[in-house]
């Protein structure tokens, strides 16, 4: 696959060379620098070959701005980094949102954080920030926002139509689970248009990363996705380990898998309860909290916290697990297995529930690729893609589990995929516990002061919500030069407007719930 793409891309690009990168060091196989005139052709090239736009990143190198496009493939592992240099004095680039729909939001994000304008973009308005920001936050030098830009960026104003009215779903609303605001254009009970407005929880983690050492940033990762912090921890430490070449002892790898899967369980359980609360059934919420409490009780003595964990370290773990942990986890597996039949009876077999979720929010494979959705949403749409399988980190490569997929791509499929993923998580934990090796939990080769070699890395892990991509640029100092977080909820939310269109308000709530969004992660 990689060879073929290299040859074909080389033929398309003609003059510009296509380089081959060391995948284990860089996280991508091929790279090429294109001219802005070629960009759209390249995008179409990847679109025709079934690639999706995994991430769109901007890096400010002072002399020039660099746009980084990561293209990836669902079917086989092949990642390509396409870069485009732009002049910082007059930052303009062509949009590729006409080819890949998910670029629509990424480009808006880059516009407000870097001031890069995208030619041909249909809606260059603010996504996260508000009109009061008078500089571009992620530029290395302070560049004031010109008045023209401010005017263009702050253009979003919902106006009422003749037969329609606007309803604000959020930012304070029971079903958005956080401070997400969706402006709905309604015709009676039917939705004509949905426009998510983000940024109510924006904390600029990416800028924080540039001002902290690698270790200091570690606690931030757990604050992004408060329901699945372990997977974010895992993604970050494995990324930095990959960048610096730090080895990890076997035992630590197994413990990482166990804890990440336990956290995935608690995240999925939380989703189950919250989703049913969205649909009007309040009781399951308390039942899943009961189970979730058990997980917290298991994790608390080991990690020292119950919600925003910061447990993994570069080269190992903070703390070893003891026999009580192993026994407690085994008991919990038994307990949760017996509960699945109860959930099936109460929820999965409930005719009201299945009628509410069947056939709504249908995502086709093609739309899933164009919008770059990931995780259970992608698998519900029928694409068997799991980063734990395709790019296994920690000890995932040694685990035996299947990847559940849906057939219809509707909200009911997302539910079934998540339930089966929970069962899989139990199996993975069981396997890891059975094979848990003795030995050290921390490598002795971890340097005291981390100064990764010059270069970049795009590293992905599977969080409970999908593909987490971390792009780190190192300039050999002890702080990252640029760190971009490609978060799964952000990409999954992008598909919401087209799913909601033409549906009832009640369905919009059910669709929003089936995407399993965590707002602090979207806003970062």
């Amino acid at each position, binding site marked *: 696959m990689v060879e073929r793409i290299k040859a074909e891309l080389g033929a398309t690009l003609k003059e510009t060379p296509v380089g081959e990168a060391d995948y284990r060091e860089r996280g991508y196989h091929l790279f090429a620098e294109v001219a802005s005139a070629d960009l759209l052709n390249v995008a179409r090239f990847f679109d025709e070959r079934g690639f999706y736009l995994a991430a769109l990143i901007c890096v400010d190198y002072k002399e020039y701005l660099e746009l980084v496009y990561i293209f990836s493939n669902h079917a086989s592992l092949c990642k390509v980094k396409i870069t485009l240099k732009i002049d910082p004095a007059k930052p303009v680039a062509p949009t590729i949102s006409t080819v890949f729909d998910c670029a629509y939001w990424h480009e808006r994000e880059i516009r407000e954080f870097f001031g890069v304008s995208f030619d041909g973009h249909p809606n260059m308005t603010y996504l996260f920030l508000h009109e009061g920001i008078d500089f571009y936050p992620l530029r290395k030098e302070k560049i004031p926002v010109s008045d023209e830009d401010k005017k263009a960026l702050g253009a979003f104003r919902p106006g009422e139509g003749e037969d329609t009215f606007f309803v604000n779903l959020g930012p304070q609303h029971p079903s958005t689970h956080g401070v997400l605001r969706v402006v709905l254009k309604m015709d009676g009970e039917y939705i004509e248009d949905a426009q998510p407005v983000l940024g109510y929880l924006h904390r600029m983690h990416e800028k924080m990363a540039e001002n902290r050492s690698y270790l200091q940033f570690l606690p931030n990762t757990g604050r992004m996705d408060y329901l699945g912090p372990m997977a974010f921890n895992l993604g970050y430490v494995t990324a930095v380990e990959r960048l610096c070449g730090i080895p990890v002892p076997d035992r630590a790898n197994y413990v990482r898998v166990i804890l990440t899967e336990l956290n995935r369980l608690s995240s999925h359980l939380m989703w189950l309860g919250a989703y049913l609360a969205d*649909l*009007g059934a309040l*009781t399951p919420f*308390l039942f899943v909290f009961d189970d979730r409490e058990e997980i917290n009780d298991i994790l608390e003595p080991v990690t020292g916290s119950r919600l925003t964990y910061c447990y993994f370290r570069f080269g190992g773990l903070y703390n070893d697990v003891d026999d009580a942990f192993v026994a407690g986890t085994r008991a919990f597996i038994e307990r949760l297995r017996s509960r699945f039949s109860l959930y099936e009876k109460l929820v999965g077999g409930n005719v009201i529930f299945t009628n509410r979720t069947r056939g709504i929010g249908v995502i086709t494979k093609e739309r899933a690729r164009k919008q770059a959705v990931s995780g259970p949403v992608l698998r519900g749409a029928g694409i068997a893609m799991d980063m734990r399988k395709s790019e296994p980190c920690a000890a995932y490569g040694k685990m035996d589990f299947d990847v559940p997929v849906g057939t219809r791509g509707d909200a009911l499929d997302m539910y079934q995929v998540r339930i089966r993923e929970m069962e899989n998580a139990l199996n993975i934990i069981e396997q890891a516990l059975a094979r848990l090796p003795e030995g050290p939990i921390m490598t002795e080769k971890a340097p005291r002061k981390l100064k990764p070699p010059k270069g970049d890395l795009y590293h992905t892990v599977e969080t409970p919500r999908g593909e987490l991509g971390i792009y780190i640029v190192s300039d050999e100092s002890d702080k990252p030069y640029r760190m971009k977080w490609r978060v799964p909820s952000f990409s999954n939310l992008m598909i919401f407007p087209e799913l909601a269109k033409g549906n009832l308000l009640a369905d919009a709530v059910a669709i929003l719930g089936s995407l399993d969004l965590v707002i602090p992660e979207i806003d970062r």
Partner: protein
Amino acid sequence: MEQIGNMIGWETVKMVVGLVGVLVFVVLNALILTWAERKVAGHMQRRIGPKEVGPYGLIQPIADALKLLGKEILTPREVDKPLYYLAPMIIFVPVLVSFVVIPFDASLQVMDINVGILVILAFSSLSVFSILMAGWGSNNKYALIGAIRSIAQNIAYEIPLLLALLPIIMMTNSFSLKSIVEAQHGLWFVVYQPFAFLIYFIAGVAETNRTPFDLPEAESELVAGYHTEYSGMRFALFFLAEYTNIFIVSAIAVTFFLGGYQGPFLPGIIWFLLKSYLLVFVIMWLRWTYPRVRFDQLLNISWKALIPLSFINLLITGGLLKL
């Protein structure tokens, strides 16, 4: 006493005493039901519900009522004031009137009107006005959508509700609730009319806006529906009306299908309350078990299933009676 009675007429005295009794019962009933709902919900959700205030948390509803009474009465600036003020008061009228004709016991009935059930049905339709006033007057989009939903729902479900009661009226040849109860001296009507009972009960749950038919106040979609903008005592009035409506729906079911106040050993009123609160419990049970149906599904259940079924039931009953 005799003189006072003669002066203003015994009927009037009975009416006034009855109305005061009804008012006391409405308040008591709401207090008990809020406590019961929280206890039922608690035990269904693996917790114990209120327990701090009084034994088993029994005083909790009184504490809540005092809190609501003590709250500042807020009026949002943009509301349509007359409608906004009137809505919570008007919602209470049909509720009170319904109680006047319900026979709690053989002799415990404020008034036995020969069109008793029609009075209840006619007045309970009025509560739609109050909901519409609240929804429109609040000048809030959530409230408005909630009110629109509520009206569509109430109209759709009043038809099967009435059609399910009609076979009983045909069997007894009477609109008077008391004679309907007396007619069930032998076998309860639920034995003759099990389908009518089911249809009535489903429609009744929908009429009271309870889960799985709680669309007008669907929390996850409409925040609180038509009473989003109400707080303090005004909110409490809506709340009170909701719980009283649940009791009325159960009480009519008991009167029509479950033999009313009749039963062995215990006094009639005990039987009546026992049966009614059992049905109330079932309604609560439903609420804490099921998710909410969607709006089009809700209307489909009524127009496509309940109404045709109740017509068939009515036809069969009519045919059998003629034989």
